[in-house]
């Protein structure tokens, strides 16, 4: 993983969109200079795209299934959207707190341009609160609590293009909460020939999802479990809307991969893994890659051990037995479960160790032995 240094970003930023200054007042929207460091309370504000006005100056967010009804001066559950005198604003459009260049395998996408780099970006905030969040230091904080830089969509796209990075990836925290930024970055990237990917929890309302999907090359969704209990107790979210989002993504033609983090004793039973695999096969199709990844204790869930590797292997085998063509294991570097194998003839197609691609035998997206087409975004 390499980090773009500040000089590179600022240089590119200067070539990006011009800054727009508006006075700050009740309800007024402000935009800081491109590339400026943002900390404390001076956040840019832009009217949100998915909400409706309610009586008495209240608003209802229509971005995520929480549907927060927010009074004046208050924020939604995500902490990044604020009601300013009846206008709902996002405080994170262009406010990037993390920008890195990662291998696309880190997301993980195993069927999207293997070995390619992705300019990855995130803002503060999240619409759920997973007790096992790996990135809680940005996802569970408000934007004014996290150091960030103003990098508008055109700047990110231009930085990627100029550096020969073929992909943009909204990731790390939860892109749903910065969905306008994702939308506009994806559109800017498309104009410059840089494709966009999103790594999300899939906890989003259908219309908002549909509005952005056309500009996305791929989405990875964390299906955190296959029980509402898990979503309620450990995620503070709901399973049902996530399943709906998966269906919408699959139907749209945007490439989809799923990650299931197996948490010991919480979502790793044979029955739950089998039910999940069957649902994916029946509803989305057997060609959707499903990554079973290893949990490590963190944040508020430090009393559980890391997922035993045999648990991951069992899930991997169950998924295969249920007819999923591309199950994977994650966070187990060097395990054969990281490799892509032809479901037709069993030929090993892509060999990986961790985020590194050691060998890619695909020929034009097909198996070199049996010529079976392997689904994905290969070129």
């Amino acid at each position, binding site marked *: 993983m390499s980090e773009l240094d500040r000089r590179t970003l600022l240089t590119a930023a200067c070539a990006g969109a011009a800054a727009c200054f508006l006075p700050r007042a009740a309800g007024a929207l402000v935009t800081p200079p491109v590339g400026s460091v943002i900390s404390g309370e001076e956040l840019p504000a832009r009217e949100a795209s998915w909400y409706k006005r309610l009586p*008495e*100056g209240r608003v209802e967010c229509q971005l995520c299934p929480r549907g927060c009804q927010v009074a004046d001066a*208050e924020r939604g*559950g*995500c902490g990044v959207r604020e009601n300013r005198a009846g206008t709902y604003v996002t405080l994170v459009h262009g406010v990037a707190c993390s920008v890195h260049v990662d291998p696309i395998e880190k997301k993980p996408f195993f069927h999207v341009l293997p070995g390619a780099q992705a300019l990855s970006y995130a803002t503060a905030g999240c619409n759920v*609160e997973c007790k096992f969040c790996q990135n809680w230091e940005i996802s569970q904080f*408000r934007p004014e609590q996290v150091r960030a830089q103003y990098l508008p969509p055109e700047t990110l796209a231009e930085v990627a293009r100029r550096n020969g990075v073929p992909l943009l990836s909204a990731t790390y925290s939860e892109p749903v909460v910065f969905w306008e930024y994702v939308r506009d970055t994806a559109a800017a990237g498309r104009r410059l020939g840089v494709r966009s990917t999103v790594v999300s929890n899939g906890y989003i309302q259908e219309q908002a999802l549909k509005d952005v999907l056309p500009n996305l090359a791929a989405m990875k969704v964390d299906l955190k479990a296959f029980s509402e209990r898990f979503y309620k107790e450990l995620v*503070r979210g709901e399973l049902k809307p996530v399943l709906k989002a998966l269906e919408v993504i699959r139907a749209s033609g945007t490439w989809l991969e799923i990650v299931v983090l197996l948490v010991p004793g919480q979502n790793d039973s044979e029955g739950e893994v089998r039910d999940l695999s069957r649902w994916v096969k029946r509803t989305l199709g057997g060609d959707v890659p499903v990554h079973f990844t290893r949990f490590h204790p963190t944040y*508020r869930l430090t009393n559980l051990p890391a997922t035993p590797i045999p648990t991951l292997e069992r899930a991997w085998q169950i998924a295969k037995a249920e007819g999923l063509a591309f199950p994977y294991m994650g966070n187990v570097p060097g395990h054969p479960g990281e490799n892509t194998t032809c479901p037709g003839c069993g030929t090993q197609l892509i060999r990986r160790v961790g985020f590194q691609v050691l060998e890619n035998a695909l020929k034009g997206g097909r198996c070199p032995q049996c010529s079976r087409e392997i689904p994905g975004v290969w070129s």
Partner: protein
Amino acid sequence: MSREFSRRELPLILGLGALATRPGVAAVREPGRVAVAKLPPSPGSRTLDRAAAGAALSSAITAVAGGPIGALFRPDDTVGIKVNSLGGAGMSPHPELVEALAALLRGLGVPPQRIIVFDRSSRELQRAGFTIRRDGGAYLCHGIDNDYDSEPSTSGEIGSCFARLVSTTCTALVSFGVVKDHDLAGVSAGLKNLYGLIHNPNKYHDHNCDPYVADVLNHPYVRGKLRLVVLDGVVAQCHGGPAWRPDATWPLGVVAASTDPVAADAWAWRVIDAERARRGLASLEDAKRPPRFLATAARYGLGVGDPAAVKEVLA
């Protein structure tokens, strides 16, 4: 063998007794008791007469503490006074009242640098009329400004990083709130004000903030340090909160104090519902935002949560 104590010795011994108990929520002196002193707003001005503010605050504290402020604090305390400045200059504690509390603490012997008036951000404090002071002056005044613990700690359903002012710096806390309606919590008085101690309050507004408000209060950092709640009810707001909404305010004309933080909020609930009834508005219960967290806090043993059981004492 026993002996009688002289008048000179007795206060000293009583003072030492107070030190030994180190009051916090766990040692509420008179559960359910809320002292109320009259303090009408100044006609045509938000500024309060300092002498009147000081007298009202002092009498309310004396009435609820059963003696001077020394019954609640001691000279070597570092006292954090958490004000609720979200409502800006229109609906935040009057600086004159907060300064009167700081003066009482100084009078007890707490040095100015160990009296810290704070809220989430310096900017909000400034908007509410406070002067930011990180050094010098009669007391310090500044925002938390993102100075939180590096790791979250858990209390019931909440998992939050607390302000280091609360976890580390202060030995005693005062919640200095207002009396206002809150769109989700029902009431924002002394307890909802405590959301400003944690880094992620936005996560805890479901179900009328229950049990989350009670869980913040029940965290050892708060439960063990909160000695006093003061509510600025010079002007109160019965609808449209938490933002300031002038047409929903009325001159309640009091300052209230309690060592029972739950009872203070229950009193505020009673007052707000009475004004709502007078205006023909639905009760908070009927408006589907009763402050449910009060019953939870009472169940935790943190105070009296039933408005009908609160004993209002005129100071």
